[in-house]
Structures are given as structure tokens and as C-alpha cells.
């Protein structure tokens, strides 16, 4: 499932299962493109992963807590623990591979 979350929603839901956190900015071209990619990823493996979009500017505490230095940054969490992180725009096959390796 793909959706935009607040900091509070993220904290409530990130602790269980497979979560892909997309730290993005509304002022970033690659982030806008990644939104289309993640929508595509969600169609393919939305049943395996919870995709949460986190606005870089609206969630500064999460940005600091996760040490996110730039956007877009994708962080894959399993039961709340970070297991993989990639920076920059990614293509659909790479993201699916990342999810399926851990699903």
C-alpha cells in the first residue's frame, strides 16, 4: 500500500512488517518522478510492502533521526529495523529487487 504519512502515522506503523520509507521533497524533480515509480511498484508488490511517503520539510525530526542527508532517499525497514538504504532516483526493477530480497 502506498500513501503519504505524517510523522505520527509513520511512528505508529513502521515497527511491524516490511516498510519502504520515501523521504521526498516537493521541490525536487527526481522525487516527483519517484512518485510515479513507487505507484508502479505498489501495483506489483503492494501486498508485500507498506510504502510510506514522508515529506522532508514536514517531518524534520524523522529526517534527523534517520540521518537522511538528501532527497529522494529510500529506506527499507523490517519490523522497524533499517535493512537497506538508497539515495537518488531509482528505477522500478531495482526497488522491486530490494523488496523481494527481504519479503
Amino acid at each position: 500500500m502506498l500513501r503519504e504519512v505524517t510523522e505520527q502515522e509513520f511512528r505508529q506503523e513502521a515497527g511491524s512488517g516490511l516498510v519502504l520509507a520515501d523521504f521526498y521533497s516537493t521541490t525536487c524533480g527526481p522525487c516527483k518522478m519517484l512518485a510515479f515509480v513507487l505507484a508502479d511498484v505498489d501495483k506489483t508488490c503492494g501486498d508485500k510492502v507498506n510504502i510510506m511517503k514522508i515529506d522532508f520539510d514536514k517531518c524534520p525530526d524523522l529526517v534527523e533521526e534517520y540521518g537522511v542527508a538528501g532527497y529522494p532517499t529510500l529506506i527499507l525497514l523490517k519490523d522497524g529495523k533499517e535493512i537497506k538504504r538508497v539515495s537518488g532516483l531509482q528505477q522500478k526493477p531495482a526497488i522491486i529487487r530490494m523488496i523481494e530480497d527481504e519479503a
Partner: protein
Amino acid sequence: MSDKITYSFSESLIKRQAEAEKQMLAEWKSGEYTFDNPLIKMNPYLINPLAAVVLFTTEKETAVTVTVYGKEERGNIVHTFPRAKEHVIPVLGLYGDCENRVELRTYEGHTKELRIRTEPLSEDVPKLHYIKTEPEYTSRDLIFVTPSLNALATGFDYRGDVRWHLTVPVVFDMKRLKNGNFLIGTERVLQMPYYMSGLYEMTMAGKIVKEYSIPGGYHHDQWEMENGDILVLSEDPDFVTIEDVIVLLDRETGKIKKRWDLKDCLTPGEGPSGGYTDRDWFHNNALWYDKNNHSITLSGRHTDTLINIDYETGELNWIIGDPETWPEEKLKYFFKPVGDGDFDWPYEQHACLVTPNGDVMCFDNGHYRSKIREKFLRNRDSFSRGVLYRLNREDMTIEQIWQYGKERGEEFFSSYIGNVEYYAEDHYLVHSGGIQYYGEHASDKPAALMKDDPNVRAESITVEWLDGKVIMEMKIEGNFYRAEKLPLYHDQDNLPLGEGIRVGEMGVTPEFDTLIPMEPCGELLPYRYEAQLIEEEDRFTFKAIFEGGQLVMLMLENEEEEHGYFISTAKNKFNALCCGTFIEKDPRNITLSVNKAGLKGDFQVRVIVDDKKYDTGIQIHC
């Protein structure tokens, strides 16, 4: 004003040169050009304004000696061409903006003095700060430098006078071939910031004899094998990871005969340097084939290591570098320092070479000078140097035999680029090509990303070392990828005539897997984007100006197919800028090249900008 974007077709340089040569030869054949009344053509190959060709016919076969007079006798450039009746003589090493005195002399015969007028040198010529030479320094070779910022490839003589210059941004290493020509990267950018379409085999007059196109492009370095084939630093055509592939090109056909992927012998992420990124995990900036053990030595800037692999199998033989942070299973490949003298590992180094006795040299940039983030040195506190190591593979020890540069500290520091050359024992060249100051100290940010900032000062210092002392030091304005000392003329065919040929192939430009679902809005791309499309025989290039943060995708569409190419408008797109020549001053400028390879048919060119898909009014035939 029309909103239709600007379209132009650009003929290849090799074809334009062929046409110019054909016209030159036709003019010669249609006239009575003798030794005393030769035809003189300035800049015959369009890109070297300090070269001319003199054409004439003699009744009897004779050798001809050409002398380009220098500002003093030591500056004369002299070469004798083999006997012939029909003479097509390249005149090299002219001075810019003056009437050059050039003498022709038949073998044991008479002389003819010519006056050849040249144009002023362009702003692409680097400015000389100084050149210091010892009185005994008598080399008539030029010091050639190749671009890293705006100034273009240039050759300086012992006085610092410019005697050679190319007006197109051919880039990276300039390596002389056994036939006397040299190889250098084309000016055709395949992918920003500096992945070029391939290599030119070129004469000193600037004539392209052969153009090699390579599917994964060319960057940094190349090497001529004993049989003439060419080893080239390249990457996978999908550009998912970069600077981690080596290919062997057939010299005649340009086809790839062998390929090494460094991910087969190293795991990305092992021993990362300060500049490491997931995509540019190795950053291979040099290669050297060693026939003594049939191996290839490579320089991986983003692992802080020089590595050596077996030519046949690609398996790892050894690693020179600081072993800190490397995984346990790789430590057996590392050397242990020995000896009583000074010893430092290389960090983010460039330009490895192997001397005839198996010693290894490189330009140790010293960027960060640690593998531990907390211990990283600022550029102002580090040093760069040329260094020579002696290896013992039996007991896996390494000794530092020589270095030059550490003692100069910040003043000689180059966070990126640079090279060393080996001429003989204790006779080397060290080129610190990327000195960058911001105000009073070495800058921590690349100059290529601060092109308009008046506080930035970019310099390059080249030193020749002989028998324990510096015999030449040259300082020029700007940054230069490498320096090479070469003679202008050689003893083979200095100007092979006939049309240059293109070999090899362009790869299929990687498309974006996900397309943006959107219908054309029926409007032309607005003029404010200043878009232009330049078509070539084998590709087209889209240029425009977009604001940071805009969503942009170039589309090729017809009734059956859609192809999408994402264009990043992010501000800081590039981490490592060994060649910033193609970086625009205005970061809003974008450039995207799409090869025609893999595409067939007619395509409408459309551009998605945020929430609209615009027409361009241009159709491309592939």
C-alpha cells in the same frame, strides 16, 4: 516569436574534415604549386589553428626538411619528411597571432622561406603563470595538457609559449600510439558529466584518422596493446553503476573483443573512500597493461586503492592501499609497508603506472587522507604527490621508494585529477592538475560547480624531476586532467591522407522504465525553456533550461511505441568531476543525448514538464 524549438543538424567532425581535405587537395591539383611557390593552408583540419599544411610538387624525388623558427634557436621545431615528388607537409608548432618564419629545405638542396600568419589565440588557451627550467633543460618536446574545466587541450614549449592547441573539447588522456598518432576522448558527451561517445585517433595537425564509438562510452584512460587493440575504461550501457568496466576494442573494427566487470572481483561498498557513492563505487580513473605478468593495474579513486587483475581471468592479484575498513576476506590481497623511510598510502589517487622493473607509481591526490570519516582531513590540511612504490609479492610487502609533493602541502594539493609519467629511473613528471583555492585556502568544493565565483582560483602545476631535482616547473591557470610530454613530429606518417573512418557502435540510450501517464496538451514547448535539438547522424541532443525541482521527461512517440528519458533538474547532480568541461555555468541548463541505436522509425519529440506534455514540432527519423 515562434514557440517551435530550435533544430539543427550537425555533421560529424570527421566528415567536415574529410570535405576540407578533399577541397585542399583539389586546389593543389588544380594549380602549379612548386617548392618555390607552394600552396599553404592554415588550420586545414579545422580544429588546430597552430597547424598548417604546405603542398607542392618537385620534379625529382627529394626529402624535405621543415623548420618552424622559434623565438630563439632552442625553440626551433625541425622535422625531415621522406623523399617524394608530391609533398603534403604538416607544419606544426606555429605561434599564435604572429607572422611565423618557416623554412623548407630540400635534401642537400636549396631553401625556401615562408611567412605564415596566424590568428590570435582564443580564450580557450590556458594562461601561463610561469615556467621555470634549468639551463640544461633542452627538451624540444611540448608539455601537453588536457581539459578539466573550460580551457582546452594545449601544448606549451620550454619557454611556456603555446605551440599547439585544439579548439574542440576533446578530453581525458592523450596517449601516443605506436604509429605516431594519439588517442583522446571525443567531444561528444554520451551522458553527463563526462561519459564520452568514444575515442579519436588523431594526428598532431588535428586530423581524425579513426573515431571509435563504444556502447558504454569512454572515460579517463585508454591503452594500446602490443597488437594495436585498445583497452578502454568504460561502463555498462545502462549506466546503473559507472566507471567499473574495461573493454578491449579491436583496432580495426572497434568491436568489443573482451570485457572485464570489476564487480566480478570486488564487492561495491568495500573500503569506500570519502567520495564513494553507491553508483560510482570504484571510480576507475586509470589503467596500465603489464606484459611482464599479463595483468592490468587500475586506479579506483572511490576505494582509495590501486588494484591489479589477471588479464585472462579478471581475478584479483593484489591491492595497494590502506586496508582499514576492508573486509577480512580481502585483506590477503593487501601489502604491508616496510622500510625505514617515509611511507603514506594513496587516497583518491589517479593515473597508475608500472615501471619496467615492476614498481608502481601514481598521483596520490590525498583527498580526505583517511578511510575513517572522523579522521578526514580538510583539503587545506592535506597534501598531494607523485609516489613510487616497490612491491614484493612473495612476502606481500611494500616500500615507498620516492615521492614528490608532500613537502609542498596545500600549495600543490589537488583534490582530484593529476598524473605521473615515468621516463627513466629518477626521471619522472608529476602533474598536480586540480589545484583549487577558495580565498586563501584549498577549496573543499569543486571549481566546476563554482564557475562564476570570483573567490575561486584554479591552477595546475607540472613538475619534471631528473636525477634528484626539479628541472622544469610550469604553472598555468585552470585545471587540467593530465599532462604529457611529447614531440610534435614523429618518424612515421605525420599526415595520413584520406577520409577518416568511424568504427564501433553507439549503445542504446537507457530509457526510464516508468512512463508518466499523460496525454499531449496540444501546445508547443514554451519559448521560455530555450529548448534546442541538435541532430547528428547517429544521435540527437536536447538542450534546454528548466528550474530546479521541475519534473521533466523527453518522450519519443509514434503510433506503436513510446520511449521516455528522464531529465534531472536537481541542483547538485554530480559528485566526482574529473572533467567539468561540459558543466554549464547555469545549473538550470540541461543536456540529454539519445542515440539512434535501438530505435527504428519516425518519432515525434515531446517533452513533459510538470503536469503538461508539450509538442516540439520536431520529428526524428531513426
